[in-house]
């Protein structure tokens, strides 16, 4: 997923992947720490939430809150990396096409560091399902029972 402009990353060098045991470490400009891929079809990443995000000017003027849908799209961006690691479809073509059982438990605001985890739970052709969670300081702030990722023109 390409994030909205206010949260778009700097044009850092192309991502690279290292291997540390069963875990692959991938540097990716959409996340603020190296992404950990695996073991299996899992991934973990960190997204920082600085006070400088433009979205806070309107969401909301009296209480800055990261919109939950942007957190969903960060989960999807991480899921897309897992898909790209395991599949042969064109890179950057995986996108979020459906969600089920999403819950937001706490607001995310300036200064938070959000650890995002995704795990692939199913895969069929050009579609893959993931479960996902996000935590701040060991507190779960959001979960998604199913994120459906799709590639191709169909949807």
């Amino acid at each position, binding site marked *: 997923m390409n994030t909205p402009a206010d949260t778009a990353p700097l044009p850092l060098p192309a991502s690279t992947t290292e291997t540390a045991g069963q875990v692959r470490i991938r540097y990716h400009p959409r996340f603020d720490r190296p992404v950990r891929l695996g073991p299996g079809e899992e991934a973990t990443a960190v997204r920082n939430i600085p006070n400088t995000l433009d979205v806070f000017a309107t969401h909301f*003027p*009296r209480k800055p809150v990261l919109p939950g*849908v942007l957190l969903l799209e960060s989960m999807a961006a991480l899921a897309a990396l897992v898909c790209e690691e395991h599949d042969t479809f064109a890179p*950057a073509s995986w*996108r979020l096409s459906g969600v089920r059982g999403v819950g937001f438990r706490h607001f995310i605001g300036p200064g938070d560091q959000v650890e995002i985890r995704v795990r692939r739970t199913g895969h069929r052709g050009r579609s893959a399902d993931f479960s996902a969670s996000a935590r701040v300081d060991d507190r779960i702030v959001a979960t998604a029972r199913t994120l459906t990722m799709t590639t191709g023109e169909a949807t």
Partner: protein
Amino acid sequence: MRFHLIDRIDSWQPHRHITARKVTSVHEGHWQQTPDGPRLAFGLMLEALCQAGTWLIMLSTEHRKRAALLTVREAIASGPVRPGDTLRIEAVVVSRSEEAAVIDGTVTCEGRTVLEANGIMCALIDAEELDDPADTARMASRLLGTKAAA
């Protein structure tokens, strides 16, 4: 980005139903760049629907309450939205209490359904905790095409 994803409110019935519009433009900065061209992210379509719902709550409560997203039972996208498209958003309140409301809705684009969602549960919180009531009133007037409130 300005996180205002509703450009017009076309109709509404208190606590029941709202229809709204968002026009899209190549000049907006939030397009996903995909191999088949730019498209609107799933999350922003869902957000447009949620914002229509929160405007219905605000209009129905004379701007005293607004909605904060708690859960989404299901939301499915079914087609691309490209720069220049106009989204038509319809949200229906299926249940509500003093503390929460549940909304179903659809987003269509040029006659195609591009997003369907059900079981969007929102907490109803005091609107003035989040924004200046005068600013909310001015925005409501703009969206409704009415004269600004005093």
